């Protein structure tokens, strides 16, 4: 499976944020999306998730030689600030999600199996989500986004505000989930991107550009990225 973004443009108040993005993402890989503040990373995600109208462009999934436009169930989007419906318990939210999507979820598991998968403790499963900690809300949001096994998983700054234990759990989770789908996550932390990602993609000048990952020389690789991102500022 491949996910292709073709000629994506998006402007705000006359300012072109995305200037004709052309890029193909491959199945089974984790992509780290890097860019300066205001480069348009969130805009890019919002365009893929159809949260905002694009000015032009196509999002295509190619599978077994067949190409089609993406639909909403293709995409899972995990936000940096986790949002969960406060008035439901974790279990109720899970049940609701499975009810709504039962046709599209293959091999439905029991709620407890799902909770075990993201390490949400038994005591917390029947608590109202408003009383969940930040890390637990994050896990819950992640869980909901992966149950339906979306082809594309977008994560906006997913690990930044988590404590070290939860962050490590989430990293493991992402690695275990990468096969069979395309994972793209945006981050400002270069170390995290290098550690977790198979490929680094830079968003600068409103365009996407892949950076060759040089395993032999980590330092040179970092310098290449910093240099590429700094250029934008010097223009």
């Amino acid at each position, binding site marked *: 499976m491949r996910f292709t973004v073709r000629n994506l443009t998006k402007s705000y*108040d*006359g*300012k072109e944020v995305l200037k004709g993005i052309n890029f193909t993402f491959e199945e089974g890989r984790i992509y780290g999306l890097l860019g300066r503040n205001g480069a348009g990373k969130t805009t890019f995600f919002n365009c893929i*998730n*159809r*949260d*905002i109208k694009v000015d032009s462009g196509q999002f295509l999934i190619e599978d077994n030689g067949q190409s089609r436009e993406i639909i*909403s*169930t293709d*995409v*899972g*989007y995990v*936000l940096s*600030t986790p*949002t*969960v*419906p*406060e*008035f*439901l318990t974790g279990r*109720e939210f899970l*049940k*609701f*999600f499975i*009810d*709504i*999507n039962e046709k599209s979820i293959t091999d439905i598991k029991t709620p407890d199996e799902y909770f075990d998968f993201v390490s949400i403790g038994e005591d917390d499963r*029947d608590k*109202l989500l*408003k009383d969940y900690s930040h890390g637990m809300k994050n896990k819950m949001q992640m869980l*909901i*986004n992966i149950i*339906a096994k979306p082809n594309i998983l977008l994560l906006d700054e997913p690990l930044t505000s988590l404590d070290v234990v939860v962050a490590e759990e989430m990293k493991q989770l992402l690695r275990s989930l990468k096969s069979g789908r395309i994972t793209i996550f945006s981050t400002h932390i270069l170390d995290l991107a290098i550690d977790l990602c198979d490929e680094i993609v830079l968003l600068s000048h409103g365009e996407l550009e892949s950076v060759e990952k040089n395993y032999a020389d980590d330092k040179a690789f970092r310098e290449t990225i910093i240099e590429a991102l700094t250029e934008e500022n010097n223009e």
Partner: protein
Amino acid sequence: MSNAEIRKTLVTSFALKNTYRVNTILYSLKQIPLIKRLFPAKIYGVPELKIFANILSVMWEISSVFLWKLLYFVTLVCGVGAVYTQLPSEGVFLHVILFLTVIGFIINTHLFNPTMDKYYAIVLLRMDAKQYTLTDYFYRLARDAVGFVTMTVIFGSINKVPLWICFIIPFSVAGGKIFCSAITLLDYEKRGKAYNENKLSKFVWIAVLILLAITYGLPALGYLIPKIAAMALLVAFIPLGLLGLKRVVTFHNYKEVNREILSQMLLQLDNAKEISKKSVEKIISKDTKISSSKKGFEYLNDLFIKRHRKILWKSTKFQALVLLILAVAAVISVSVIPELRADADYDKIISNMPYFVFIMYAINRGTGFTKALFMNCDHSLLTYSFFKKPDHILRLFAIRLREIIKVNLLPAAVLGGGLSAVFFLIGGTGKIFECALVFLSVVSLSVFFSVHYLTLYYLLQPYNPSTEIKSGTYSIIQFVTYLISFVMIYVKLPILVFGILCVAFCLIYCAVACALVYRFAPKTFRIRG
């Protein structure tokens, strides 16, 4: 402080105030529906618009000197004063103005009022705190005096107060304020705790309430402070002010005082946001027995309704109970007291039915429902793509519409039933069709408001992720809804016209609203960026 320093501080603080006032005006222009499209994205850099906003800003600075004082005199001094018809107007004027002025010494000091102006100037721009505070203080006192003297002369003459005292009052106000501030500063030097006029202690509140009771309560009982005493006190404030002036001018710790009260202000602002979010979260019932046997969206809705009982069913059931008691009391009174029926002018009373537009507006739970929907449910679910599928949005809309109509219908049915029963008893069997119309019109109004609020919510979705209302159109429509409902209080219509109009309007509105939601909501029901 030299004259040049004062002038410079005055000019800088004006320029600062003007800058953000101009930006506020330009920002507001960008919020007005339709008109906002006429302005460019970089509105803050267009010289012509800046000049226009500057003119407005200066006009506001000048006119506000008089407008607030005019409002103060029309309402608090003469407006309430006119109630005491038995007492001499001159005495009432002096009594009210004296005690209100004293209350002003405590709660309107200028010196201990943490404002954004002060925050920008002292904290962010690091202007000299003493220079800024004093310049700003005396400027405000001068503005007050100009506004006051205009109004005391006008309203004093109307109330036959001697002209000389009208000219004295503005100086008394300034004098008293300076004297009280001097004492407060003295207290700061002793205790090291700054007074914040927006964060009053329990004792100050009690003092203010006692003074208010003296201001308005004594005249109601027929007592006034003797005219001569009032005038003597007003005159005495002037030398007291001169006495306090020295301390105010020589006080050195304005920086510390301001920092303390300004940090309290910022904390209050932060807390207000947090409290507003928490208060909606608090509504969610903690009852662990709540569960649902339904499925999918019905399941979601069922749990939402059950966990928000407090603002939905519990509240409408209470309304219905009160209305039921009133209705039963009215029906019994009209049945057992024949005079009530005989004396009542049926046509005249029933022509007041438009009044119930306002009542139905007031008891509708629609706004509370949509607010809780957003804050506790949709603001999070709208970030999940499965929730935003067009058919899912519409299915949930239909469920929620059914639910909110049901919630509002209970008190409406009781009210409608009670009213038609009373009208039937007064009007007799000949009026049965009209009585049915009364019931139908009340029910229609209830359905209309339910549909109205939910439709607005789905079409305009006014909230941003921080749960602030960000849609100018939404706020304007809310206001217009209130205004029209309010105006209906004064409208009188024959029941045949009103009833048929109500039912027809409700049917047409519901049809149009639902058509609009089905057509546009999949696109408009989004979190605002």
